[in-house]
């Protein structure tokens, strides 16, 4: 098994049971490969840090109005900072964003109770990042920032390996990113005109997630 396959295997085994038979294959490779051993150790350290985080963060007050204000603000364009970050850091950034979005949606449910509405305590996904939790005193205000940071990191990871993607895939990526960005812009404009539209706020959060999903998937393919 080569190092690329090990990278995929490390992804696959994240969260897999300890008895997964592929772990034997992984350990065998790690014994003879210092590069993958270091990569695995970095991931283990990160996973350990995440596992030590608390699972629930109770909002001290109703933050939704401020969150909505942030969402209505124009999206922050990703800063250009070269193609340095590797895909695993893109994954970290993505989990960071997903944690933030989960909080947004959960709090929206809280202020707009309906069937299956969230309880007062907002659950944070197990994969929430340290940064997300550090920001937990006012986590929802970080949603836009996290979104831009995650998209930036993933775009950088894709750019680094752009040559490994076919022209058709790059075209598909660009076309669909433009579709999502256009949809985000339209919803933002709509919310600017009429702020009280919970359905559209939820749709906006879905579109953010979809953009990160798309970037994450293509970054995996290209790495």
């Amino acid at each position, binding site marked *: 098994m080569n190092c690329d396959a090990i990278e995929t295997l490390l992804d696959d085994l994240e969260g897999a049971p300890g008895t997964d038979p592929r772990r034997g294959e992984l350990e065998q490779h790690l014994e003879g490969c210092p590069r993958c051993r270091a990569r695995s150790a970095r991931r283990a350290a990160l996973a350990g840090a995440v596992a030590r985080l608390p699972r629930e963060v109770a909002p001290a007050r109703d933050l939704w109005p401020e969150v909505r204000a942030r969402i209505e603000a124009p999206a922050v364009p990703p800063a250009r900072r070269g193609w340095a970050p590797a895909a695993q850091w893109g994954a970290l950034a993505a989990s960071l964003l997903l944690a933030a979005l989960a909080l947004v949606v959960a709090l929206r449910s809280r202020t707009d109770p309906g069937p299956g509405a969230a309880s007062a305590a907002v659950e944070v996904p197990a994969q929430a990042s340290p940064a997300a939790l550090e920001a937990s005193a006012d986590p929802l205000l970080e949603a836009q920032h996290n979104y831009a940071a995650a998209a930036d990191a993933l775009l950088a990871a894709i750019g680094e390996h752009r*040559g490994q993607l076919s022209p058709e895939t790059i075209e598909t990526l660009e076309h669909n990113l433009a579709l999502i960005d256009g949809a985000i812009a339209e919803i933002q404009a709509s919310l600017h005109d009429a702020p009280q539209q919970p359905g559209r706020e939820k749709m906006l959060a879905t579109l953010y997630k979809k953009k990160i999903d798309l970037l994450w998937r293509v970054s995996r393919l290209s790495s």
Partner: protein
Amino acid sequence: MSKPRVLLFASLLVLAASAAHADRSVSKSVAAEADGHVSVEVISGKVELIGWDRDEVEVTGSVGDDVEELRVRSVAGHVSIDLEIDDEDGRHGSRDIDARLTVNVPRNSSVEIESVSADVSVEETDGAVSIESVSGRVTVRAAVREAEIESVSGRIEVTSASALEEGEFETVSGDIALDAALQAGGSYSFESVSGNIELRLPRDVSASFEVETFSGRIVNALGPEARRESEHGPGMTLSFSTGDGAARVEIESFSGRVELRER
């Protein structure tokens, strides 16, 4: 050089280029558990996965010139199928890495397929399927229990003669079409940005439906008409139940059309 000679020379060049990128046949098989897990990863081409009544996974077909090896590995109930690519210069994008594979798996296997632009079809399997694609078309014609399918621009089409227990379908611009019965207690979600979403369900379906679009039209032949979400835009919402509302269906589209039809 005369015109006929130029044509002959050009034809020879084309033939030479074709020969340089000739696909080669592949065929591998491994023993498998009747209800094990099978994963397939390809980049481009076509994958036809078909269930059969043998405890064996068999892969046949052809691969491009830059595929070094078709790998079929089995470890304790998990069969993984992927391609080792010749990556000397690290430029997958310009290489001939197409794979056209027929994969036979035990009928009750749970199946996971990842592709970039390959068209994927699944037939005659009863287990769970999980498929991710970027631009390839995904077609499932099988009595699968659970389906989790994501595509960016490829169309997703699922047809099942029996009830689907759970389903999750997402695209950005690809269409989604489901023709199946729903299971009591099951949950089903459909999301797209600009793709159309069409559900064909039995006349006596028992489910609660929550449908929302930003600008897409909603056509409902199973219950009440959709209404405008607000005076601030063309968005539509639809919330209704049929029967006991035993299953839960959530559909969200930005600009794609949503249609609920009888089978």
